[in-house]
């Protein structure tokens, strides 16, 4: 780091999601000036107005969507769901509407190459990250306990909030599964069990995507606090098109453009401009972050920034979620809590891992007729309504929902040549190539599916289900978990950034978020993303304020 610590250091962050927000908040607390760029629109918080529109009036207006042609991605291979539906360009990003599950990534996930011969070892260990997991849990206010989960990773401090109880139907199911050695435990989640950090306690509105009281964590909570310091500015409706380097090869600015430029009522300067910064952080998700690096060519970087070893966009991994459900004679009335109740970490690190992936079994009390399904597995509410003439028909069609409980297999995968992101043929509204994802299952994934099917039969038989359905192998989706496209590595030859997210070969430029994931991952990734982000922010603040690098860059070894 060569920037002298004479002037107030400045940082530009691309993306206002949970990762960009965590970094902005942490940097502002250390006296750094931060500009956050978000191509989507502002989104009110707490989400009272979206709640009123979507729940009370059933009339969602298109106010909270990015303009057409700005959030686009094309898909090839055999991925059956819509990736476009899995990205959300809005202030706060995906986490403004997320489920808020916050498990810690288990220690073995950081070392799958050493332990099981697949994926890549991360350049950071669970032990190194543990204090940052703790900070991330405190930042988000995670409610949970390990008392009922013997598979939980070690922790230095208890969760900051007590857990949400299992549902009545969870306990009913747990009693039947226990004799077969199958466990259900509570789920850690960024949802307030009690008032926390100025946010209200959950009262179970059950419309968590638009929580009207802010009980479910949303990044806007900390974004607003960061702005209140006077050191952070959020530029919504502003697209970032390129990262610009100076003559020495150091990142010096972003090329930004009003997202609605060209529209008659844009109401802002239509001009594209450069926004200078001492440091640039790309935190735009694992699909948009690599795209921006690929678009940002420069002398010495003809294939995009950080891409001298060709790793930008490679190593893409999703989680693979196979939906299933079990029908019981007894009416269980699942889904009466909007948050998350039961799940099982029992098979995160199973015998046979390496031939196939680890699996989280999701057994939350939810209705089998979800309001939205990413892939078509069975009859949906849309099917029910299409065939109904009156409310009586709706009642008859939905009545079986009392007897069905969903069971979802949330599976690990490994990177491979059939999973990658590159610049596509399509163009966004400014003429820039959109991201193209090619994604196909490999033998490892098919073996993981067979493992899941075996588990499914165990759960079905142990619980005494009368009927059971499981999606077929090719009918899965990512759970909105996109990872690995700018992976961390000790050596430039193996990845895009070092262990602190600093892009190899481009001083002044970092990547943050799920794009950094180095190898595989069995659990929901957000808490790990935030832990990595807080660690990055701490190191960067140290560098920017003191002018001295925080820690040796292991990539130089």
């Amino acid at each position, binding site marked *: 780091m060569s920037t002298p610590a004479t002037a107030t250091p400045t940082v530009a962050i691309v993306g206002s999601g949970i990762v960009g927000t965590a970094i902005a908040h942490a940097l502002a607390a250390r006296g750094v000036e931060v500009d956050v760029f978000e191509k989507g629109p502002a989104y009110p918080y707490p989400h009272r107005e979206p709640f009123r529109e979507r729940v009370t009036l059933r009339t969602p207006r298109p106010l909270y969507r990015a303009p057409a042609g700005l959030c686009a991605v094309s898909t090839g291979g055999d991925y059956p769901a819509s990736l476009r539906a899995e990205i959300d360009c809005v202030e706060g990003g995906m986490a403004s509407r997320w489920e808020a599950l916050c498990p810690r990534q288990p220690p073995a996930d950081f070392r799958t190459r050493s332990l099981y011969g697949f994926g890549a070892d991360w350049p950071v260990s669970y032990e190194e990250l543990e204090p940052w997991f703790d900070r991330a849990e405190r930042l988000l206010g995670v409610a949970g306990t390990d008392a009922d989960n013997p598979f939980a990773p070690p922790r230095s401090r208890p969760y900051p909030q007590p857990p949400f109880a299992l*549902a009545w139907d969870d306990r009913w199911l747990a009693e039947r599964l226990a004799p077969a050695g199958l466990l259900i435990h509570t789920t850690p989640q960024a949802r307030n069990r009690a008032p926390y950090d100025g946010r209200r306690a959950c009262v179970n509105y059950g419309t968590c995507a638009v929580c009207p009281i802010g009980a479910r964590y949303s990044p806007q909570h900390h974004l607003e606090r960061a702005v209140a310091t006077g050191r952070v500015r959020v530029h919504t409706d502003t697209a970032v098109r390129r990262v610009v380097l100076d003559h020495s090869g150091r990142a010096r600015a972003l090329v930004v453009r009003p997202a609605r430029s060209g529209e008659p009522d844009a109401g802002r300067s239509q001009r594209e401009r450069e926004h200078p910064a001492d440091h640039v952080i790309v935190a735009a998700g694992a699909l948009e972050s690599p795209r921006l690096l690929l678009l940002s060519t420069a002398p010495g970087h003809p294939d995009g920034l950080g891409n001298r070893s060709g790793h930008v966009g490679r190593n893409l991994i999703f989680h693979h979620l196979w939906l299933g459900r079990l029908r019981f004679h007894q009416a269980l009335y699942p889904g*009466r*809590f909007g948050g998350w109740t039961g799940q099982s970490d029992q098979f995160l690190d199973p015998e046979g891992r390496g031939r196939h992936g680890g699996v989280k079994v999701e057994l939350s009390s939810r209705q089998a007729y979800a309001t939205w399904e990413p892939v078509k597995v069975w009859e949906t509410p849309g099917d029910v309504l299409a065939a109904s003439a009156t409310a009586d028909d*709706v009642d008859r069609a939905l009545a079986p929902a009392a007897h069905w409980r969903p069971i979802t297999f949330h599976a690990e995968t490994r990177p491979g040549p059939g999973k990658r992101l590159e610049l596509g043929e399509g163009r966004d509204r400014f003429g820039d190539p959109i991201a193209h994802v090619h994604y196909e299952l490999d033998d490892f994934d098919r073996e993981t599916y067979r493992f899941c099917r075996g588990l499914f039969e165990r759960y079905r038989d142990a619980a005494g289900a009368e009927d059971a359905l499981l999606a077929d192998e090719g009918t899965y989706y990512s759970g909105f978990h996109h990872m690995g496209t700018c992976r961390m590595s000790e050596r430039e030859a193996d990845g895009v950034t070092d262990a602190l997210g600093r892009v190899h070969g481009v001083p002044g430029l970092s990547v943050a978020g799920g794009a950094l994931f180095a190898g595989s991952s069995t659990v929901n990734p957000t808490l790990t993303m935030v832990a990595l982000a807080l660690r990055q922010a701490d190191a960067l603040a140290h560098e920017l304020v003191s002018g001295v690098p925080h820690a040796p860059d292991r990539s130089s070894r």
Partner: protein
Amino acid sequence: MEITRRNALIGAAAGVGLVGLAGLGLHERRALVGRLRTVATPALPAGAPGALPEADLALLLATADALLGGPRDLAPYRRMFEARSRSLPGYRELYRRLGRALERRAAREGATSFVTLPVQRRQEILSDLCPPGRLARLRTGLTDPDRTRFRLYVVREVLDLYAATGAWRTLEFGPPPGLPRGLDAYTRPPAGRGSGGSSPLTTP
């Protein structure tokens, strides 16, 4: 299912369609499926948002009342109709067209207005005007797209709102999402259900 002349014709047409579809190339098949989807899902008509006239609102509430099959709290439905008319382009115009179509049908029956008809007659009119089912949607989409629009943007939306609210209580799940239900009730069986058992409307 009763084998009527109409069902036989629909079946024959579907059979011919499937054979024809099998003979097409992938590109043509995709184009045809896309076209059929457009026919079965027509966009809302053009029209600026605006306040909903009282007469149209009364007809919409009579529609909702018929679809719900009896006395219910119509306030949530009123809120939805008014908000959509006021905020989203096309709804006010569609509601106006639905009102005219319903009044024409009521007049044919000698009634002064659709709203004065008994629930069952209103249900029959709605079922005939905008019948349920995807095939029916396609059929009306080809012959009179407004009838498909009535089905999609009025009937479906009323039933959708019911499924998300009233059905929760009818099916004994308790209060629906959107209300603060507390953190205790979900840890117990629904009120009155004791330790569970078969639900009243199901024959497993």
